[in-house]
């Protein structure tokens, strides 16, 4: 016994020594001129996209090395913990990804961010960026971040073959009533659960509710994100929850054990006809070799035809960073037309700028850009950290996760309003959406 263990131990230690020597060699002091960024685009298309953006930066500033620290998981859930620990310890990187809007609030209130209104002025971003988007990176009238992309959240993905075979015209599905009628048609045709949902991670439930609330009208949505919906008997709130309850009647029963991409896969295979998801879902159809407008298509979620729901990622300029100049240079690239048109076609989102080069984008995105330009209203997503304070959103996820199992409208309504009231101090932004 002793010998083998001894050999193993010696082998392990020798390997470790070799490894340390190698690591030591590779870890030679990094050049002083670097840019350190954190983001949660770690895999597949999202990684290719950020790499393309970094390439633009490298072309503009060839002498600066870029150190990326990707941290994946639950739409940045883990990364939030990492960033908050780092920022508190004074180890903030030169820039980090966050959702625009309320996700920046704790950093702003803790005075960890440098205002960058001058940069906005110099780069002339104001005229090319829509007002609501601009408002999402502002606190107290000053700019604190630069948006890099826009994902649309109010999208219904459908399997075109399934709808065609059953005589459902997606263009007519502009109200929830029409949508549920179509679902009934599909159920009769043998598709037991026409809507696919996968809510491992909980935020997908919030995501659906948010689109239904927007469908109640932009005024109501504005009240909701401004913390004004404080009565559990508010007719529009109750109506939205009732719609969601009906919606759940058409949803696959195993939603609790699926991830969002597994739900999309059911639309791809035709086991389900619809799924409500942000437009990063387009990547899943692409991977499966499906063609937009032939195999699958999109409509805005019922009631939100003239609206564009915004999920926006941005970067900022933290205080006291090690390479402040590179931090600002990075923001310039992030906000530039060139940078956005390098990043977004690959990411599957659209540029936050209205002057983007549409020829670079795929067929779905081209349609999205057209909708974006034509949109009457835009609204910041709550499910994705922008619209409402973090303290509220964190509760909302749990409330909706309970709701999708018990469908108890009045319990959810009181929990929602209670969460709004509990976070009332945090509603520091006044959204103007109409």
């Amino acid at each position, binding site marked *: 016994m002793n010998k083998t263990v001894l050999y193993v131990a010696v082998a392990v230690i020798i390997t470790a020594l070799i490894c*340390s020597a190698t690591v030591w060699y590779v870890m030679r002091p990094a050049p002083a001129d670097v840019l350190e960024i954190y983001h949660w685009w770690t*895999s597949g298309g999202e990684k290719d996209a950020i790499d393309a953006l970094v390439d633009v930066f490298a072309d503009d500033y060839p002498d600066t090395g870029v150190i990326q620290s990707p941290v994946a998981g639950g739409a940045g859930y883990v990364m939030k913990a990492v960033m908050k*620990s780092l920022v508190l*310890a004074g180890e903030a990187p030169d820039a980090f990804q966050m959702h625009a809007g309320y996700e920046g609030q704790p950093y702003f209130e803790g005075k960890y961010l440098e205002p960058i209104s001058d940069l906005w002025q110099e780069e002339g971003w104001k005229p090319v960026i829509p007002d609501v988007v601009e408002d999402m990176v502002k606190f107290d009238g000053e700019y604190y971040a630069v948006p890099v992309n826009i994902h649309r959240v109010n999208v219904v993905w459908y399997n075109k073959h399934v709808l065609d075979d059953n005589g459902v015209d997606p263009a007519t599905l502009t109200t929830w009533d029409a949508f549920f009628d179509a679902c009934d048609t599909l159920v009769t045709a043998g598709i037991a659960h026409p809507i696919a949902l996968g809510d491992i991670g909980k935020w997908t439930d919030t995501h659906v509710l948010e689109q239904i609330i927007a469908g109640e009208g932009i005024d109501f949505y504005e009240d909701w994100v401004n913390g004004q919906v404080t009565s559990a008997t508010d007719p529009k709130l109750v109506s939205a929850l009732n719609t969601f309850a009906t919606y759940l009647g058409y949803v696959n029963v195993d939603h609790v054990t699926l991830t969002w991409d597994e739900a999309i896969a059911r639309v791809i295979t035709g086991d389900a006809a619809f799924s409500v998801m942000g437009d990063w879902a387009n990547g899943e159809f692409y991977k499966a070799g499906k063609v937009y407008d032939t195999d699958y298509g999109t409509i805005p979620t019922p009631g939100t035809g003239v609206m564009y729901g915004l999920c926006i990622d941005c970067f900022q300029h933290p205080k006291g960073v090690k390479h402040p100049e590179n931090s600002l240079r990075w923001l310039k690239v992030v906000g530039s037309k060139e940078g956005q048109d390098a990043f977004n076609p690959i990411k599957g989102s659209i540029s936050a700028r209205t002057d983007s080069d549409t020829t670079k984008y795929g067929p779905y995105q081209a349609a999205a850009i057209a909708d974006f330009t034509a949109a009457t209203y835009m609204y910041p997503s709550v499910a994705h950290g922008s619209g409402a304070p973090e303290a509220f959103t964190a509760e909302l996820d749990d409330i909706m996760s309970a709701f999708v199992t018990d469908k108890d409208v009045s319990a959810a309504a009181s929990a929602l309003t209670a969460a709004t009231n509990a976070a009332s101090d945090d509603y520091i932004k006044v959204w103007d959406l109409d």
Partner: protein
Amino acid sequence: MRFPKLGRVTLYILLIFFIFAFLLPLWTCITTSFKTLKGVIDTTPVEPPLGPLFRLPYPTMEPLITAFNIMKRSLLNSFTFTVAAMILSCLLGSINGYILTKITFKGSNTVFLFFTIGIFIPYQAVLVPLVLTMSKLGLYNHLGGLILTHTAYGIPITTLLFRNFYGLIPNSLIMAAKTDGAGTWTIYRRIVLPLSLPPFVVAAVFQFTSIWNDFLFGVVLTRGQNQPASVVLANLKGTTTVMWNLLMGGTLWYALPVLVIYLVLGKYLMRGYMAGAVKG
């Protein structure tokens, strides 16, 4: 022990049932890591990609190769700090265990309590002071910081393991050495340490598994090139895209060192537990 024939059949059926139950994760890892992205969508995880002959998609080596190329640097990082922290925490634990059993002093039980409670510390609760400390020590984003952290949080459990084992070494052995003129350190080095192979195997394997599988410390204490394999592995899954085949391929590479250790040392690990369970 003799059992009737029927009993033996039942026994093997039971054993094989458990084989299935326990092998499932590895099986799905392997099948998925040989699939193309389309294959992942088209088939259930248990179905292996055997090719169209079985009405299944073609197998591919690509996920495994890509995953390895993405992970190689981080595997090296993980290996370095895991082995270093494992050795340090085992050594310190061994010395503590020895002191607490063989040179008992007033309050040694309190010291033991002091260590043991440390096993239960919830790591999420210490993130902020931890990053602050590492930043002040200049060990933030340094493998040394991870080594220090894992060593410190490893000491409680290794102390416990070694103490349980050393309690079984007859005191007469120590007394005899003492009367021969050996001091405490000499006794440890000459008598206790050579007897410690079984608990070292047990403690080392335990520490290797838990440090290797740690995600939380790795993700807050390092960035960029220094990220450990657990973080890079989680990154293979993506946030708005999901690449199951790449994730599972990466998982195989990530699990490999631990699996090898369990397979090679499995027998000795059990002997370690045999030795540790003998009543003194």
